[in-house]
């Protein structure tokens, strides 16, 4: 592999990071109200949200990409490949983050609710001061694991022509017929990319844990 081809593949790195980051950001924001709706006391809303979450999760990511890029693209809204990928992965990330937040909420001890009621906290204060800080702390490891999974899934965006790592690797492999080393390098780049995320998550967890007295 020459320096030129290596640089060409590496130029996909920012695209992979941007795609993963934007989708994760969207998912982290939208996932929260989704989690609240999935636990709502109002039954129709709860059933609808739970239904939507399991529907989105049961369709594979590549199909969401195609539905949004080709399906919507051929009649309704035409998006660039990159924006279609952000929308598709954002949607998938939102339902998965909702599940992760739900796991974090379940982990909160019931006594915390009782204490908040005893102290006459409003619902807003209950969430802002008691539930959310604890939920976030519990959710961080699973969110980081999910972020790494999402980063690997973002390789699927190469099928609609987003010029990220896997797409560039594919191009070089077709041009040079040196698939063995090209795909090995691309695979290694994804593994290397996941290392700092895992380290960051450990650091964040340690930092947040230090603030809590046990």
């Amino acid at each position, binding site marked *: 592999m020459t320096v030129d081809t290596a640089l060409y593949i590496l130029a996909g790195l920012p695209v992979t990071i941007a795609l993963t980051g934007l989708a994760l950001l969207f998912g982290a924001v939208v996932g929260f109200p989704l989690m609240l709706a999935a636990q709502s006391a109002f039954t129709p809303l709860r059933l609808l949200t739970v239904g939507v979450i399991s529907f989105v999760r049961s369709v594979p990511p590549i199909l969401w990409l195609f539905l949004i890029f080709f399906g919507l693209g051929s009649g309704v809204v035409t998006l660039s490949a990159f924006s279609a990928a952000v929308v598709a992965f954002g949607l998938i990330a939102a339902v998965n983050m909702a599940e992760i937040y739900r796991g974090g909420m379940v982990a909160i001890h019931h006594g915390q609710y009782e204490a908040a009621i005893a102290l006459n906290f409003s619902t807003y204060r209950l969430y802002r001061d008691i539930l959310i800080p604890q939920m976030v702390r519990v959710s961080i490891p699973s969110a980081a694991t999910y972020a790494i999974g999402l980063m690997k899934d973002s390789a699927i965006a190469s099928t609609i022509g987003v010029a990220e790592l896997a797409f560039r690797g594919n191009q070089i492999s*077709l041009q040079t017929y040196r698939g063995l080393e090209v*795909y090995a390098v691309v695979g290694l780049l*994804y593994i290397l990319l996941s290392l700092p995320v895992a380290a960051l998550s450990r650091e964040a967890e340690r930092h947040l844990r230090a603030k809590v007295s046990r």
Partner: protein
Amino acid sequence: MDALLMGVTWEDVRNWLPSFWNGFLISVRITLVSLAIGIPLGFLFALGVQVKNRAVRYLCLLLVEIGRGAPALVLLQFVYFGLPNAGLSVGAFAAACIAISFNTGAYTSEIIRSGLEAVPAGQNEAVMALGMTRWDGLRFVIIPQGIRVAIPALLGFAILVFQGTSLCFAIAVPELISRAYDIGSMQFFYFPALGVAGIFYVAVCIPASFIVSWAERRAGAYSQR
């Protein structure tokens, strides 16, 4: 809605169904083959990362980290487009099975390992106190208890493997997504054709996820006894 459906009729959809059904069977076949190879492989990896021999342990660890760390799509392309460079040409279906089995093996090894670790340490001590061989201890005491813990997670992973077969589109296996894409690109019925493929996935995955949560509840009830 009209803009999305592009005037597709029920007649069209009915004509597509045989093709979709064949694609669905291919997806199911890849899933079953990959699970049949991948789960025993996961067992080997799970035991391999615990053996005393350093060379074997590091090799297993390396394979597990590659199988879990590299995207499934890149693994598929590596096997299908890359291995021919090393003189190993395989067909698309075989390549799909090899790559997904390896991926399955790497992921399930972690599931199985955590299942085996969930067996209380006293069980292992009892095995040693009774003078059982290491293998007999695994075979009769540790594995039967560990696998019970791992089964719900393994079932859940089986659903992900079925969804993962959709990536075989990239190496031209004629599975569900490929069929939908072909109809979409030939007749320009992208949205309806992809929608029908989606129905196949939903029809399998939603009932399957109910089975998984049932298995989880049952396993939970077992461990509380």
